[in-house]
């Protein structure tokens, strides 16, 4: 087990280093960093002055190593757009995004798992069709549009939840529903097929012939095996939520990392964007690793 974890950890670290390399080079070649700091209308002399002042005239590899060693010590660099340390910016905005990510995954669990179980217990009935219909719809509905519809609906017709801002947990209800809805189709389908596979297996038939039935059989026998892949997919989805928060946060005016990313892009603030891309990718890697370890712990066959 330890060997398994160590192996995975090495891959995660290698991928993280590769990704930091790719983002750094991509962003520094997509736009001249000196131009980005100086602004669109800057004169040639001003740009050259900024280039020397900020050290953009040095080789890109040197700047990359300086940046990377800074990141490892918690020094994320200075934001030119916000005039602030990027570390503080991220720290300020992170709690909102973490709350949103956790709440949206809870919404996914609350909707997708019962639907998946119901669909698997009643295959090819109206309930099954209904669940699959919801999956097809949730897959095709644009996130931002769903958010705007919710705002129209809840601001005028049912004023239960606030539609914009991030002061209380109630403010996060609608954004979590919108962000959570996009994970419903994969989780629900997996729950359904997993349970359908298990229901046909020998040990369930044995349990049935021993007199187990109904919810007791489903919860205590079938679910144990069917829920394994679902748990790992949920962990992966949680990793996705950080990067996926951009749209939801800008629709519902939540001051989290996603909105910070959008504002930094529009202000061509390369240091902040760099760190955010890296943080989102790292979050995904960590949750993926967590899912792998959890799966290996629950299912010894995967440890090889």
């Amino acid at each position, binding site marked *: 087990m330890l060997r398994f974890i160590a192996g995975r950890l090495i*891959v995660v670290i*290698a*991928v993280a280093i*590769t*990704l930091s390399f*790719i*983002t750094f080079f*991509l*962003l520094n070649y*997509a*736009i001249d960093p000196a131009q980005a700091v100086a602004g669109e209308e800057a004169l040639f002399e001003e740009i050259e002055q900024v280039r020397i002042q900020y050290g953009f005239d040095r080789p890109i590899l040197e700047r990359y190593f300086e940046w990377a060693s800074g990141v490892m010590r918690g020094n994320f660099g200075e934001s030119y757009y916000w005039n602030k340390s990027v570390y503080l910016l991220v720290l300020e905005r992170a709690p909102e995004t973490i709350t949103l990510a956790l709440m949206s995954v809870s919404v996914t669990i609350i909707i997708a798992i019962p639907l998946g179980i119901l669909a698997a217990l009643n295959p090819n009935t109206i309930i099954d069709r209904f669940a699959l219909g919801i999956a*097809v*719809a949730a*897959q*095709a*509905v*644009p*996130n*931002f*549009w769903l958010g*705007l*519809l919710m*705002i*129209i609906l809840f*601001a*005028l017709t049912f004023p239960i939840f606030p539609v914009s801002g991030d002061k209380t947990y109630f403010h996060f209800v609608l954004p979590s529903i919108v962000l959570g809805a996009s994970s419903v189709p994969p989780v629900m389908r997996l729950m359904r097929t997993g349970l359908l596979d298990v229901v046909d297996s020998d040990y369930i038939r044995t349990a049935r012939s021993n007199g187990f039935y109904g919810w007791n059989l489903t919860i205590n026998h079938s679910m144990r095996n069917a829920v394994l892949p679902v748990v790992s997919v949920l962990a992966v989805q949680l990793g996705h939520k*950080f*990067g*996926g928060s*951009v*749209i939801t946060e*800008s629709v519902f005016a939540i001051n989290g990392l996603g909105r910070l*990313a*959008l504002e930094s*892009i*529009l202000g*061509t603030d390369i240091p902040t*964007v760099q760190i*955010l*891309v890296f943080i*989102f*990718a*790292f979050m*995904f*890697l960590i949750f*993926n690793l967590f899912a792998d370890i959890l799966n290996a712990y629950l299912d010894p066959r995967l440890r090889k």
Partner: protein
Amino acid sequence: MIFELFAKRLFPQAFNNDLSELEPKHIFLRKSVNHLGFKFGLTMLLIIIFLGIFGPHIIGISPYEQDLTKRLLPPIWVEGGNWEHIFGTDGNGRDYLARILYGTRISLTIGFGAAFVGMIIGISLGILAGYFGGWVDQLVNYLLTCQLALPGLLLAMTVVFLIGPSITVVILVIGVLHWTLFLVVSRSATQRIRNLDYVLAANAIGASKYQIIFSDIIPNILNQIIVIFTLEVGIAILSEASLSFLGVGIQPPTPSWGLLIAEGREALFFQPWLIILPGIALFLLVVSINMLGDGLRDITDPNSKIEIKSKVEVPISNLKQNINSKK
């Protein structure tokens, strides 16, 4: 109904009662006639493509023509709407129906274009990894892990915004970020096919690697690739809409659906149709593409349980006569 009529008119031989003489394409047709989602998705997609190509010519109004005396006219079903502007007008007095119809072209172009770019990258890497195996496979696997970890939307936003948004840039960026599904599917299919007898035979008679890849492997993974392609078109269309909605994709005045929704946001509570109409268009297009893709998967899957039943049943009395006559 109409779908079945067309299918029977075009390929009458596919609907024979003698199941033993069916060719693969006839089996495909017969299965598709029995798949409701496939029929619905295909019909709807064809209608949308038709509207995208001919719609702007039929209504004959330019999507860019402004008339500031006719700003924010309501659509026909809201009080005050008239037949001149069926879907009303936007904040600059441009005809909304014309803009939505024109937006169909942009969504379709970007959806198919980006999926095509992703397909080329994904298939190339997938076949390389599946055919050569070993360190090539491991390298591609590593690339896959990297790509999966990247926050796609955020990176697409950044690159499109920094390079300068245009339709070509959006297509390339979305395509370059969406190849993982193609890779996974084509790699596993190639691994399976390369050890089949006919590939070994081709190898034995001295066919080169390129000949084997292009004439033996690619034609046989196309079935699965088409399914992924359809689903990726839907994903690419949604990505483009998200980028344009956030202001870092297609730029005004080009009528992309995501952009129309972003523009309608200012009048969210007073003219809600400005965001509802393009949203419905986007939803219908992606639903129809996804249903088509799901249908194709069910139909092309050799293990699928869709029946190839013959519609015309042989009456039992005939059978009895036959038995009697044999006596």
